[in-house]
């Protein structure tokens, strides 16, 4: 409801918040497991260090324990895969009503953003970053390709990237939220596979 109030279309991926919910599950589960194993190994190192007059146990198997741990692992895997698939289905869906279309072409070493039907396009490179605008609260439908080698378009603040592959167009839809703290400027970077920092920005939004 809150999301609707702020202008989200609930079926469109807000990649940043989708990322955050999955991330926090993985992060805290991972931290929990790491802390447990570090603590347990630490305990074992103290408890079972060699001391005179004590001989080591001769136990070399514990099938109930092995099976129990295996079942626990399967349960954790099932939870992770469930949460991942649910979010993935949303993020991979390239359909959205009322979306603003932007065509993006990557090349060595720059980007061209064009707005079909509006006669507008923005070109830039590392030295002259392209300023391109996205609307807030309205889905943006990106069509991404490349004219030479494989690049990747990464918007760190949106927690999202996609490959720009020559001869292939990758489509994805995302929504930019106003968020409050940022006044409409963000940096768009590309993780180009080969070479050099390709800084693109600032990314303007129409507030």
């Amino acid at each position, binding site marked *: 409801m809150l999301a609707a109030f702020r202008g989200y279309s609930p079926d469109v991926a807000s990649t940043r918040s989708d990322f955050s919910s999955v991330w926090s599950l993985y992060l805290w589960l991972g931290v929990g497991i790491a802390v447990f194993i570090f603590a347990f190994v630490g305990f074992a190192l103290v408890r079972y260090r*060699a001391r005179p007059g004590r001989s080591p146990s001769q136990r070399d198997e514990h099938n109930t324990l092995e099976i129990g741990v295996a079942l626990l692992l399967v349960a954790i895997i099932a939870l992770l895969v469930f949460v991942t698939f649910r979010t993935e289905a949303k993020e991979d869906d390239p359909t959205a009503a009322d979306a603003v279309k932007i065509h993006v072409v990557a090349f060595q070493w720059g980007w061209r953003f064009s707005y079909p039907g509006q006669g507008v396009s923005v070109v830039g490179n590392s030295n002259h970053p392209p300023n391109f605008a996205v609307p807030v609260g309205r889905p943006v439908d990106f069509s991404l390709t490349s004219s030479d080698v494989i690049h990747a378009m990464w918007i760190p603040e949106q927690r999202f990237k996609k490959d720009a592959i020559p001869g*292939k167009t990758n489509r994805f839809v995302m929504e930019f939220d106003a968020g409050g703290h940022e006044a409409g400027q963000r*940096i768009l970077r590309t993780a180009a596979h080969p070479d050099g920092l390709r800084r693109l920005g600032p990314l303007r939004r129409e507030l």
Partner: protein
Amino acid sequence: MAGLASLDHKATAAKVAIAATFFFLLSGLLALTMRAELAQPGLQLVSTHTYDELFTMHGSGMIYLFLTPAALGLGLYLVPLQIGASQIAGPRLALYGFWVYLCGGLAMYSGFLTNNGAGDAAWTGTIPLSNSSGTPGVGMDLWVIGVALATLGSLLIAITILLTILRLRAPGMTMLRMPVFSWTMLATTFMVVASFPVLIVAMGLLLAERHLGGVFTGATGSIAYQHLFWFYGHPVVYVMFFPFVGAVGESIATFSRKRFFGYRALVLSLLLFTSLSMAVWGHHMFITGAVKNQYYSLTSTLLALPAGIEYLDLIGTMVGGSLVFRAPMLFALGFVLQFLIGGLTGIVVASPPLDYHVNGSYFIVAHFHYTLFAGSLFGLMAGLHFWFPKMTGAMLRERLAKASFWVLVAGANLTFFPMFFLGYDGMPRRVADYEPRLGDLNLLSSIGAGVIAIGVVMVLVNIVVSLRRREPAGNDPWGEGQTLEWWTTSPPPATNFTSLPEITSYAPLLDLRQAAAAESASDLSRHIWRQRSEARGVER
């Protein structure tokens, strides 16, 4: 050890070890140069083109020329000894494999001597960047040829190890009596035999593409190349991991004075790992939009199952043991705890919505250096310190070894932990420059790289000092060896063994000690009982 033409598997393994060490130091120098460049924002030391060569050759050198051959070389040395064989199957093939690998490595590095420099299309050689218009020049051709030859050499060595395991086990050495390390080598060589030919073919096709064209064309061609590459590229990660799990397992069991815990579960988990290893490659392609992400996400997350069982077994081996903290044990513990961070972050990147952010960033660089450096290299160090006395007949200096362990722990974590934050905050990998706000963490990481270099020098000094002023190691320098290599002399004779004990389990020497202890205990109790009864008789 004698002679370049010696067919002894130990001599061939020594050659592999020397060559792998050479390429490790060379590729490590490239890493130091990169970290020096990255210590401050801006370009100070190298051009972006040179930087491309640096990260390409660092990654290629470490994977194709160091960790993979080192893992197989360790197996080439130890597997015959562990399973009671007097030689490797196909000693000529193994020696030939070494020379092919060495030629590949030299070809790859000789690219630096050409006009356009060495290969600079990353260790993956992704199409179309690696084709003749993306990366022209002989250096890139030499890279392609080098990768193909080094991989062929590794494949040949792996075949000899696999055949040795299948054909040359000593009488009584059944499959389920093979030591843990030999089991990890069996799983490793399975993966090598199934996946390395695919890379060799891919490199042949890439060379054809570069000179004739028309092989990997359009989007289909570039995606096809990635499929071929990663079908090799994921199993190879476990080729660089399993043997060191084995080395760590043997070290932990020996210095816990206990039999390896959960042996049969470990064997099952290795086999599950091996089969999954060839079903997960698409997770390197989540952001291409060209694979079914859910399938690869499912298989990749499933890896947590065999990995979790291996952790249970490694830690379970310590529980109830009588732990002695010699240098190999410290490195083994370093492996267990540090690899954990690499493994857990591996589960993170098996989730596409998370990978969409961290793919191609320093988060990935941190992740795989925790698996390959903080993990595999520490496992290799555990194996080195554990088996060095067996291989050379000389003990390593214990205090220096322990000091180098702590320096390497500090260096590894200082170098690679900040990279998780750098990647999350938006620093792409394979860049020579970055935003000024990321300067502090990069500086920390660069300092860490220097600390690693000190640790590596300490290990090398230890090896040189220990070989020059030898402290002789007996057959079983740890006094608690469990497997057959500790039965024979250090270093072993040309035929490995002059006699073999009865092989009763995967820890035959431990069986012997326990039987002797039980016998002397029963002798002792019989003796006490007799004395007591005699004493009672006197009283009566």
